[in-house]
């Protein structure tokens, strides 16, 4: 019924089929980092799902756990120091965390794929870009060198790299930042993955290039009906692309909503703080509202709501009880004791 069903014909391999349209299901995930100084809890019981053709943005400051979530899904955390004490990550019903390593390796690329923030350091400096893209076809499809290279050229053309045929033998440092990120994208979509994770794909780029890369991602996602997880701290970037937004704070999901709802009326003081901190042209001359303080040290997360030391609305209950992520309006989840008041404000 979709693109990815036609590509899995090799015998013996597992056929991954989305279940009721659900591609990825993260359930009650915990990730800890065991270091010499103690245990840092980077992910603290996160659950969400991703459906076919859906774009989910995961939003948060640095250290909120959004990148760690992506790396846990991809299986590229350094373990140790990282430990996943509990939780499930199911891809088409198969738990990636209990799958054997060889099987899981085969999902990276053809099923789940990832784009990183800094394309210059993420591409291998000593191999030509075409070779690096072609490697996907050679390893996963057993293609020979020249066929794989043809496929690489085709992909480079698809992500609009000018003179792709001539530049296929060029090295990463010979491209501009935007072109390098296009090459990363070409590599990530090479095998038609069902899920694409983009970890801050535009953070390292100029503003004008950012828009081009985002629209390319949006276009590819629509064309191939991929599930897209967009990890970012930039609210401006997500508005056009994402369907739903999950906001993370100190390793927890604090709000989840459809994108326009969230922009119109945030249901968590942290989200509201983020929205107020976007510079706006119609408020020229006014002081930019910033969220005071810093995110908590993950080794010493304060009791109660982790956001309470920075929250303007914090009451005694916030310092005492951890608010659960609950439905505060149809289709809207928030982990705030006073979510209803926030949403109406």
């Amino acid at each position: 019924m979709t693109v990815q069903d036609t590509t899995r014909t090799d015998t013996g391999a597992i056929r991954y089929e989305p279940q009721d349209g659900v591609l990825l299901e993260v359930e009650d995930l915990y990730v800890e980092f065991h270091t010499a100084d103690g245990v840092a809890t980077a992910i603290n019981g996160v659950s969400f799902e991703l459906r076919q053709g859906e774009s989910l943005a995961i939003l948060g400051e640095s250290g909120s756990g959004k990148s760690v979530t992506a790396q846990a899904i991809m299986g590229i955390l350094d373990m140790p120091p990282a430990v996943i004490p509990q939780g499930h990550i199911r891809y088409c019903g198969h738990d990636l965390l209990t799958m054997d390593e060889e099987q899981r390796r085969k999902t990276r690329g053809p099923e789940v794929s990832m784009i990183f923030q800094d394309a210059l350091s993420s591409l291998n400096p000593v191999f030509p870009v075409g070779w690096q893209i072609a490697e996907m076809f050679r390893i996963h499809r057993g293609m020979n060198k020249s066929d794989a290279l043809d496929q690489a050229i085709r992909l480079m053309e698809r992500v609009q790299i000018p003179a792709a045929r001539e530049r296929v033998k060029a090295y990463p440092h010979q491209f501009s930042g935007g072109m390098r990120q296009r090459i990363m994208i070409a590599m990530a979509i090479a095998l038609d993955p069902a899920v694409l994770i983009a970890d801050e794909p535009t953070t390292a780029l100029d503003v004008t290039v950012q828009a081009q890369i985002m629209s390319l991602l949006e276009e590819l996602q629509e064309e191939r009906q991929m599930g897209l997880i967009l990890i970012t701290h930039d609210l401006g970037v997500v508005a056009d692309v994402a369907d739903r937004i999950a906001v993370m704070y100190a390793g927890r999901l604090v709000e989840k909503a459809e994108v326009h709802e969230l922009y119109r009326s945030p249901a968590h003081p942290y989200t509201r703080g983020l929205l107020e901190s976007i510079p706006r042209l119609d408020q020229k001359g006014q002081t930019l509202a910033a969220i005071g303080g810093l995110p908590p040290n993950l080794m010493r997360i304060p009791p109660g709501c982790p956001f309470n030391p920075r929250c303007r609305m914090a009451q005694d209950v916030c310092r005492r009880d951890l608010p659960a992520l609950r439905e505060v309006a149809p289709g809207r989840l928030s982990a705030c004791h006073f979510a209803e008041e926030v949403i109406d404000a």
Partner: protein
Amino acid sequence: MGTYILRRLLQMIPVILGATFLIFAMVFALPGDPLAGKCGERPCSAAYRAAFTEKYNLNDPLLVQYGKYVGKLATGDFGETYNQIKVSDQLKQRYPVTAKLALMAILFETLIGIVAGVLTGVRRGGFLDNLVLVSTLVVISIPVFVIGGLAQYFLGVKWGLFPVTVTSGEATVYQLLLPAMVLGSLSVAYVARLTRTNLVENLRSDYVRTAISKGLTKRRAIGLHALRNSLIPVVTFIGFDFGALLGGAIVTESIFNIPGIGGYIFRSIRSRDGASVVGAVTVLVIVYLVVNLIVDLLYGLLDPRISHD
């Protein structure tokens, strides 16, 4: 690329001239009379003295002597010693031995060093890692004449695993096994540590993370993506080390009685044999420069970010 090589070759000319002039001037400045003792117990006759002085240009000032020497050098004539032995014959006989020894030492250090570096880099903190760490430290801190003597005594004399010394003039590969290992042992330690450090660093790099997320096997991500980058500085080190080893190894040569270039220069200096010293050093300078050029070119091939345009 072509113009780069040409430019580098042209740059060699002043370096060769400068280096040979310095050596020539130093030999010129050495005190002593080449004719002393030449004619036995009594002083040489005036006629012989005049002919000798004329033949070796001994009355010319330094610059003129040097000019005449370089002029002959340009035609491939290395001159002869005061005993009428052609320097080029000596070099032809001894240089192949040194080159063979250097090549064997390099092969040894490359093979053992890189394998040890990769094994320890992949399994950091394991038994093998600590073993290599300690043993390389030991090798680095012990001088070569101690290692050479110990190796000769235990591996050669006591257990009879290797020939103890070189006995023939041309030094066979078999006879050079032990000296090559002794000569390469110090660099094995450096190569192993350099490989390990670079591999550990590259294993943490973003592009290895990308390689894993592309669904490559661990073996390929480490053995191809990380190692290829880790070996760039290692190859550079090995290249320069090769250049240094081609300059002869006086200590190792004398321990194992190897008729190489190092001992030749040493003996020539002691016997005030100026022509031999200058000739041998000239060859070494040229070899060193050429090896350096090759290493630089290789570096450009290994790391596409370096360009020689």
